[in-house]
């Protein structure tokens, strides 16, 4: 008796599966489904929302202009919570939905555990927001990293130091993985260009007093201070450097790329540089137009990495159009050789599928706003 029931259930389940599969295929004949992994819950949810908005904006534009190869683009978003466990579940969800491509990835720790499964399924993966060099070290040849790694920030910094005639550099970081890594790259790379690192200091998060560090830096003779930390404590550092009598140049890293830095620093902030991610409104004309469109549609400013998210969809579009297929291998090989001119500048890939050119821009606080400078 019970065996019979199990048989019936099993058969009906297979039937349901077949029907849903067929119906799924039917409805998808004229669409290209793009899976999105983004944090929609948890502490990073604000950034995840921004990512999805940018992808959606690009997709809507492309669809309004007739789609790709006569097909419409469609997004299927799964919440990765910027968390390794949630991300692997989200990856499974996206794969079972039968998507054609996958984009997204905020935070390297969340995207790395998913990469094997996309590789196994033969799904092309464009990682737009995470930027640890560990991503490409995984060695999956269908995964591309769109965002510049920290080494590129230091390239931009080196150019800035050269143009300012800097001699002695002091670094301040906050002791966590991200800011310490940036400081370490500086310590390794800047001396190669002839700059002397005279001090590496640590500021504890949420412990605002850096006056002792300021005195130590003044005493070290540094004429350039690079703040590797976040904007929450950045204003303190900049103000106390100025109030403590430091007169050299100050530059902040991308963790401080926020207009809050300007308001919080006030007078002391004038003339401070920033090695910034490619914030769309500063990069080029297309970036400005994108910013306006975004503000019109979503009623707030796009995030710091919005240009990269937008470019990611257009890279995919170009690759599909040029190869005339949805075949993963063909598209992968096309993207490997692409020279894409987007909101974030020119995107090209190294043989390791990392961006070849730095997308960092240099901003300077001038009269209470950020201004693009080209060192």
């Amino acid at each position: 008796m019970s065996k019979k029931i199990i048989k019936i259930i099993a058969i009906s389940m297979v039937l349901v599966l077949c029907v849903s599969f067929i119906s799924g295929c039917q409805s998808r004949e004229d669409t290209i489904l793009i899976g999105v992994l983004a944090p929609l819950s948890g502490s990073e949810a604000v950034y995840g929302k921004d990512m999805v908005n940018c992808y959606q904006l690009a997709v809507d534009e492309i669809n309004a202009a007739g789609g790709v190869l006569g097909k419409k683009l469609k997004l299927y978003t799964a919440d990765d919570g910027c968390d390794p466990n949630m991300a692997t579940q989200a990856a499974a969800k996206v794969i079972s939905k039968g998507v054609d491509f996958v984009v997204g990835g905020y935070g390297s720790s969340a995207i790395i555990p998913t990469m094997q499964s996309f590789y196994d399924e033969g799904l092309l993966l464009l990682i737009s927001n995470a930027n640890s060099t560990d991503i490409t070290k995984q060695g999956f040849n269908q995964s591309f990293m769109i965002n510049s790694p920290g080494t590129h920030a230091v390239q931009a910094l080196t150019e800035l130091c050269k143009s300012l005639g800097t001699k002695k550099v002091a670094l301040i970081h906050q002791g966590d993985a991200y800011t310490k890594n940036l400081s370490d790259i500086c310590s390794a790379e800047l001396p190669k260009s002839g700059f002397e690192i005279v001090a590496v200091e640590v500021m504890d998060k949420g412990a605002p007093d850096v006056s002792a560090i300021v005195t130590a830096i003044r005493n070290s003779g540094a004429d350039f201070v690079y703040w590797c930390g976040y904007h929450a404590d950045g204003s303190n550092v900049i103000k106390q450097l100025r109030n403590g009598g430091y007169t050299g140049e100050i530059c902040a890293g991308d963790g401080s790329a926020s207009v809050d830095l300007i308001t919080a620093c006030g007078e002391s902030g004038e003339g401070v540089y920033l090695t910034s991610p490619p914030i769309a409104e500063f990069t080029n004309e297309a970036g400005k137009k994108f910013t306006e469109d975004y503000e019109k549609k979503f009623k707030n400013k796009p995030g710091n990495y919005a240009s990269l998210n937008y470019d990611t969809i257009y890279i995919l579009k170009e690759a599909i159009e040029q190869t005339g297929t949805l075949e993963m291998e063909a598209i992968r090989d096309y993207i490997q050789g692409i020279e894409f001119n987007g909101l974030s500048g020119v995107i090209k890939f190294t043989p390791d599928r990392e961006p070849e050119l730095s997308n960092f821009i240099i901003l300077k606080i001038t009269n209470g706003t950020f201004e693009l400078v080209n060192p």
Partner: protein
Amino acid sequence: MSFWEVILQQIINGLILGSFYALIALGYSMVYGIIKLLNFAHGDIYMTGAFACLSVFGVLSGLIPGWPGIILSIVAAMIFSGCIGYLAQRFAYRPLLGAPRLSLLITAIGVSLIIYNSVMVVTNSQPLFFTSGIDNAAGIQIGNITITYIQIILISVSALLMIGLTLFIGRTMTGKAMRAISLDKETCKLMGINVNKIIGLTFIIGSALAAIAGGLACVYYGNVQYNMGYTIGIKAFTAAVIGGIGSIPGAMLGGLLLGLLEAIGTQFLGSSWKDVFAFGLLILILILRPNGLLGKSEIERM
């Protein structure tokens, strides 16, 4: 900068940082002295003081700008944080006064987490910035040494508060009652002292002092975030222990000493080693004087 200029500047830096530690350490020390509780929520009370000052000044600054507005905001912050301190005492600590000391300690950690996480949720873990319109950079320049006016105000205010508190504890009847309770709570009850009222008052004074520190930090550093009380709370607690917990002059001495050690450590060993240096020396002090610098050795009656 010459060697002596650097040393002198670092001493000034250390004194400023030390006065913050000292103001907060006072609260730890007072509460411990009277009910033998390590009030771990004290760092978070400091943080609520900073937030209260910032919020009140945000409203007031249009009407009363500059120092009068700041002073009013700090007074408001004292009242606000005093209330939080009192409420924590009334509802979390008082019911447990008879319980084992570990339960009280865990309760204190609980209160700390409640305040910390509530503020984190309310502020969405974003920092808030304080713009007072006061020129923080204005000051005196002696050779290469910079002292800003606001630093002078800071040190004077904390010095005055510490003297005031010492006089209050030493010279008034309430102060006498506090000292008496710290010696023997039960006898005090028999002598007609309203023990609960005095304990409540201790919490209010301690919290108000932390709020002053929070308000001053708000003006001096200019940014306020939910985690600002964590590190400073631990440092101030350390300062209280070094000075001899329960001793008011000890808390001040411990705070200033810790600030100075950190500044000197930053100068000569680098900021990544400053805590190792400061705490290494402090351990040494505790080995030599287990009750802290000014603590009295207690004889436990068995």
